[in-house]
């Protein structure tokens, strides 16, 4: 899945992806973030952090970031600011600190202190209307047969966020299914049924960028190195096709320079022996196989 481009430095590492693909995904996300928004994501979402910081540098100086791992012009919301063997001191570089239960503030997106506008969600499964599943997979009897990690913070924050961005390095029929077995965060139709506003706006994978039309996922652009046919085949439901499906623009000079500048700040080296399928930056291959979870 490598794409042919110069290797930009300073981008977060995503397990199993080469740096160029990661950089492209980071740029795609960064371009979607608008100035003044508050973006939030989970513990290990290094790529999302890179994207948010890139957007802050390039076009969104008023972006506020809520990230457990490191935060820039944002906050450490309680717990999570450490990683692996390094004790993180990012809380010394943020503008405010809040207790972890500040996540309850997600319930009021109208407040200037709102938890977020944009929230990133991954999943063991993602379906055509953008519902996600971190709960588990059904067996033949329709009951939960494969235990997932649990919904973590995704359910409520995903419920209240105006814009949900789905982030899935893996792009496979097993990940992209017609209907998720269990729902952690509801997609468009499920949201309409219970009167929720907002919903999934974008889905970024290592192969392509999708958006939504009338609540159904639609292919918007394909990364260099993949083809439309390949993406369609790798998706477990009929993907709507935009009228024009360009190649995803590669990182511009400005983006690459900004990414390189970010390399000067602390970057996180993933633990090469392991994967994390529960966050948006995961590349876990098979949630039913033994090759993750240990």
């Amino acid at each position, binding site marked *: 899945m490598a794409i042919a481009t110069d290797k930009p430095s300073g981008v977060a590492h995503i397990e199993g992806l080469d740096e160029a693909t990661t950089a492209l995904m980071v740029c795609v996300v960064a371009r979607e973030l608008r100035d003044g928004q508050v973006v939030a994501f989970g513990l290990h979402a290094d790529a999302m952090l890179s994207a948010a910081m890139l957007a802050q540098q390039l076009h969104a100086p008023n972006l506020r970031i809520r990230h457990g791992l490191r935060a820039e012009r944002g906050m450490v919301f*309680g*717990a999570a600011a450490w990683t692996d063997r390094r004790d993180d001191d990012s809380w010394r570089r943020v503008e405010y600190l809040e207790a972890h239960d500040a996540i309850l503030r*997600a319930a009021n997106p109208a407040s200037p202190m709102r938890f977020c506008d944009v929230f990133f969600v991954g999943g063991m499964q993602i379906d055509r209307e953008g519902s996600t599943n971190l709960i588990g997979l059904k067996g033949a009897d329709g009951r939960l047969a494969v235990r997932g990690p649990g919904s973590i913070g995704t*359910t409520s924050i995903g419920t209240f966020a105006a814009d949900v961005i789905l982030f899935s390095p893996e792009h496979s029929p097993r990940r992209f299914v017609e209907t998720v077995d*269990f*729902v952690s965060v509801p997609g468009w139709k499920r949201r309409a049924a219970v009167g929720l506003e907002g919903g999934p706006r974008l889905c970024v994978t290592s192969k392509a960028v999708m958006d939504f039309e009338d609540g159904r996922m639609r292919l918007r652009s394909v990364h260099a190195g993949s083809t439309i046919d390949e993406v369609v085949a790798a998706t477990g439901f009929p993907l709507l096709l935009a009228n024009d499906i360009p190649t995803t623009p590669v990182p511009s000079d400005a983006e690459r320079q900004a990414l390189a500048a970010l390399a000067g700040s602390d970057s996180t080296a993933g633990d090469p022996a392991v994967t994390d399928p529960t966050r948006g930056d995961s590349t876990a291959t098979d949630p039913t196989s033994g090759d993750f*979870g240990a």
Partner: protein
Amino acid sequence: MTKARQDRTIDIAAAVEQVADGMTVGLSGFSYQNPPMAIVRQIIRRGLRDLTLVSGPTAGIETDLLIGAGCVRRVVAAGVALERIAGIAPAFRYHAERGDVEVWECDECIWYVALKAGAWGVPYLLWRGGVGTSLPELNTELEEVEENGGRYLRVPAIRPDIVFLHAAEADPFGNVRACRQAYLGRSFAERALAEACNGAVICTVESIVANERVVAEPEWTLLHGALVAQAPWGAHPGGVSGRYVPDLEHIRAYARAATELRTGNDGPYRRYLEAFIHEATDHDGYLRAVGDHELRSLRIEAA
């Protein structure tokens, strides 16, 4: 002063004596950070059963180990994982899939809302997060209701019978402090657990500090009224912010053993329990089993 102020220190064994089979036990820890592992190992040594764990909000090895050791009937947590080492905690996965352990399916916010209801003494609170999801289907205690034309979950109160925490330090009178050098561990879920608790809040700490230090910096007191047990390295193999980082090698070895459970081979897991819990008959024994060299390599130097 005619009477002395009461010393609220206690030892680990006495702390765990307060737990009985079937209790609802709150545990600190956000993923690798600040799990009360010395307490967890003592609970396993005592062979306690049928506990409901209120872990997390995002649980880690403290929960996985208690499940693997057979102490747990139900888990209230938004997720149980070993970060990058195991995206789904392996003993949790194995026993949940077998149906040995019931999962009170929720997310982090619902976890907090249930504890807030407990702290506020009300039977339930309404919450909008989770409508339109599978949570009410999987967790029958979360009822989806209509109120004023909108849909909400009724989240029932959770009130732990006892809460165990691990923190950097405390004074002998029950004032628990975060490490001054680190933000982390300062604003986890400890307060939410302690406020909802029906009984004792027991905190193991890396070190006991003088009351004078607490009074000089009251803004660093996380909570008060706790019973305090000294347990250096008490979060190992988890970490304590400002003191030591998680022991990833240890956690990885544990995860390998736990992953074997699903293949039908419980030998490695039993050997883990033997070596680090049963043969190491107390916390000091555990630290000897881990080894001084390994522990020292985890220490964070003061900035």
